């Protein structure tokens, strides 16, 4: 017995001895910025994915012809200027001179042509990027520092799209020599950071590019760690092992705020949520009923209590940053008494059953749905809540029109343009529009999409917003804030609402 106990004790001591010096390795190298990211897109080729997680990395390695600042302004990137020619059928870009890719290859008109040939050709077909650039016919080299982009049709959001994702400029020689597959694992661009190491599912590392045309980054290196669990991201932040966490649980925000080393940064974000109505069915056919239901729910209270204030009420399916947002359009007021009267007038019997379909794994929205159900019960509507696994809801239930009377719809997008949302939601037979078929709405959507005139578009988009609100095609809920957890030792992070980081000015103490 004694021998056994001795062995146990020595084993424990050995483990402890082994552990203690290792504990010291927690302290990280100075000048390294560490970011927790919720997902590993698995490939760093700009045409390969459209995941938000890709966007959070892409801007460090690559540049577009046009760039967007954290406050969403379009500014010159690899193109110093651009002008619309031949009645808006062509855009002429003047390129930035003396720019080199990380491998030493020069950036020039050929690289731009190669990038778009690749994106619009067979290679681009494999990914989801191509359709976003469908308005582009071809790119023609005028001289080494000038290209013409010929357009098939107007796309009012094109300049914004050139500032991101698929339109990032890639090195022709490198890709031709090494192949796309290698490029996807070992990206090379003109951006502020040079790729150094990629461990799939674990981490991605960069070193500063001292020759960056926009001025070298201040930190020596940048590390992304892939951490899917929000709670784990928060723990890593608390332990001082990551500087920026892109997903922290709402419930943890107060704890993080209380920590003197940490800060919570919150701003308007791109994601809006609504409960769409199945207008083909039962009481939901009646516009007055749909309006009454909106008025029966106290969205301010939901935002305050369940979302802890990290959201804003909306009147149309978009947040304040979206182009086409109408500050004059106010959400219907919370007025259960009037809602009750409207329902009675429409002949809706107390105790009428409706079904609400939502994304089951989303624990916050589960609480929101429960609150909505309780409010609706207050005006005599019985709500049965039906959680679905997210992908089942998105793949099977909604596009095939198999929803209940109400269903959760959540929409993000990085272009911050209502066109994107509205077209997918309301144009007849679009994937996210299983029920509505409205000629007037189609015409409006079509008009704004085929115009370059932003003032005109703004007007039309606002008209769409008002029309949809008037028809009460959905119960608009709120637009979510983008929330980051940050270690205060990191400065000048310039955190963006759309999650597309660029840490050129950032420093770490």
């Amino acid at each position: 017995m004694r021998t056994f106990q001795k062995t146990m004790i020595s084993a424990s001591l050995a483990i402890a001895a082994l552990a203690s010096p290792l504990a010291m390795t927690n302290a990280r190298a100075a000048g390294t910025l560490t970011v927790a990211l919720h997902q590993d897109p698995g490939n760093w080729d700009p045409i390969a994915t459209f995941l938000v997680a890709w966007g959070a990395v892409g801007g460090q390695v690559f540049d577009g012809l046009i760039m967007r600042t954290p406050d969403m302004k379009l500014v010159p990137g690899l193109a110093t200027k651009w002008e619309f020619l031949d009645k808006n059928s062509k855009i002429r870009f003047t390129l930035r001179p003396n720019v080199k890719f990380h491998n030493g290859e020069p950036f020039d008109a050929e690289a731009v042509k190669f990038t778009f040939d690749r994106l619009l050709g067979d290679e681009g077909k494999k990914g989801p990027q191509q359709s976003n650039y469908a308005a582009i016919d071809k790119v023609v080299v005028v001289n080494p520092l000038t290209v013409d982009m010929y357009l098939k049709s107007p796309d009012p959001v094109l300049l914004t799209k050139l500032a991101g994702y698929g339109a990032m400029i890639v090195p022709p020689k490198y890709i031709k020599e090494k192949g796309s597959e290698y490029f996807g694992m070992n990206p090379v661009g003109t951006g502020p950071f040079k790729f150094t190491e990629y461990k799939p599912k674990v981490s991605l590392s960069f070193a500063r590019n001292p020759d960056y045309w926009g001025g070298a980054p201040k930190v020596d290196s940048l590390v992304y760690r892939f951490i899917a669990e929000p709670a784990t991201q928060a723990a890593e932040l608390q332990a001082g092992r990551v500087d920026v966490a892109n997903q922290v649980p709402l419930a943890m925000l107060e704890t993080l705020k209380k920590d003197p080393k940490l800060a919570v940064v919150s701003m308007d974000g791109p994601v809006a949520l609504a409960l769409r109505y199945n207008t083909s069915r039962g009481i939901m056919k009646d516009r007055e009923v749909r309006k009454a239901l909106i008025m029966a729910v106290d969205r301010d209270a939901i935002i305050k209590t369940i979302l802890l204030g990290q959201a804003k009420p909306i009147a149309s399916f978009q947040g304040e940053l979206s182009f086409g947002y109408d500050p004059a359009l106010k959400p219907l007021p919370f007025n259960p008494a009037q809602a009750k009267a409207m329902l009675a007038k429409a002949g809706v019997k107390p105790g009428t059953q409706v079904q609400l379909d939502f994304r089951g794994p989303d624990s916050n929205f589960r609480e929101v749905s429960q609150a909505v159900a309780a409010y609706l019960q207050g005006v005599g509507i019985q709500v049965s809540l039906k959680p679905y696994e997210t992908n089942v809801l998105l793949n099977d239930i909604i596009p095939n029109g198999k929803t209940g009377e109400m269903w959760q719809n959540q929409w993000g997008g990085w272009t911050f343009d209502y066109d994107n949302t509205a077209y997918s939601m309301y144009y007849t037979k679009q994937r996210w529009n299983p029920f509505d078929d409205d000629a007037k709405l189609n015409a409006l959507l079509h008009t704004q999409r085929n115009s370059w005139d932003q003032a005109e578009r703004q007007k039309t988009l606002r008209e769409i917003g008002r029309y949809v609100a008037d028809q009460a095609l959905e119960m608009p809920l709120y637009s979510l804030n983008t929330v980051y957890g940050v270690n205060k030792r990191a400065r000048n992070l310039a955190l963006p609402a759309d999650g597309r980081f660029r840490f050129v000015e950032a420093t770490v103490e």
Partner: protein
Amino acid sequence: MTGFLIKRFLQAVFVVLVVTLFVSYAVRLSGDPAIMLAQGAGSVTEQDLQNIRTGLGLDRPFPVQYAEFVKGMLVGDFGRSFLGGTPVSRLIGDALPATLSLAGASLLLSLLISIPLGIQAAVHQGGPIDQAIRIGSLVGLSFPNFWLAIMLVLLLSIAFPVFPPSGWDGPISLVLPTLTMAIIFSATNIRLVRTAMLETLSAQYIMVARAKGLKNSVVLYQHALRNCAIPLITYIGLQFGKMIGGLVVVEKVFNWPGMGTLAFDAISARDYPVLQGSVTVLALLVVLANLLVDVAYGIVDPRIRNS
């Protein structure tokens, strides 16, 4: 023994085939990876989705896709991840050692905890030590693994920052996930050892051993323990499947770069090849563990070996 092993091997192949067939079919019922890949895209048309499906080979009939998977599997090629195109065999190659080291360390630690405690409980049957150990194991048994994991992180990474809360920073990162798994498994193992020990201690040969005046430790650890080993080994073998399930959760909480995390993320992304590959490997592990249990019987108890 050889005939036994061949029979067991053929059984194993059959089990793995059934598992892969089921997983491959079920995952295809659960949703379209094209929409996951297009997630966040501004305006995805049905044609784009079709292009993606064709690119991934999903437009072919299921039997063709499955046959191709099995063909690849035979040469250790599980295809490529839909999410980015990394070869699945590389992802598994990275993840498997992480999972095996965690499973191995947890098993070892749980035995180091449960054997002496189980024996002490049996020896002091009914006394305060026995009561304390039994209550302790009941408490351990009642912890959900993810809760325990989070509590350990709060205590040992944040309140007292001794261990990293997640990821892989060398052997020190093993401590918290191992502790979580070991606590959960020790709770059941202690009760098992205690029961088996109580039975053994009342056997005649133990009385004989004591009567011969042998030291208490020799009686307990050399005579009695060996006879407790059979139920313990059986249970650990059966437990292995459950352990893999627990690993998925614990790996997820600790962001452990192992098979559990790999499979879990593959499910949420509908990354069929990664899911098929990782489930196949996990199934192989469970089958292998059961095979090892049978072999271990023979080693521990010569009567089984000879029959």
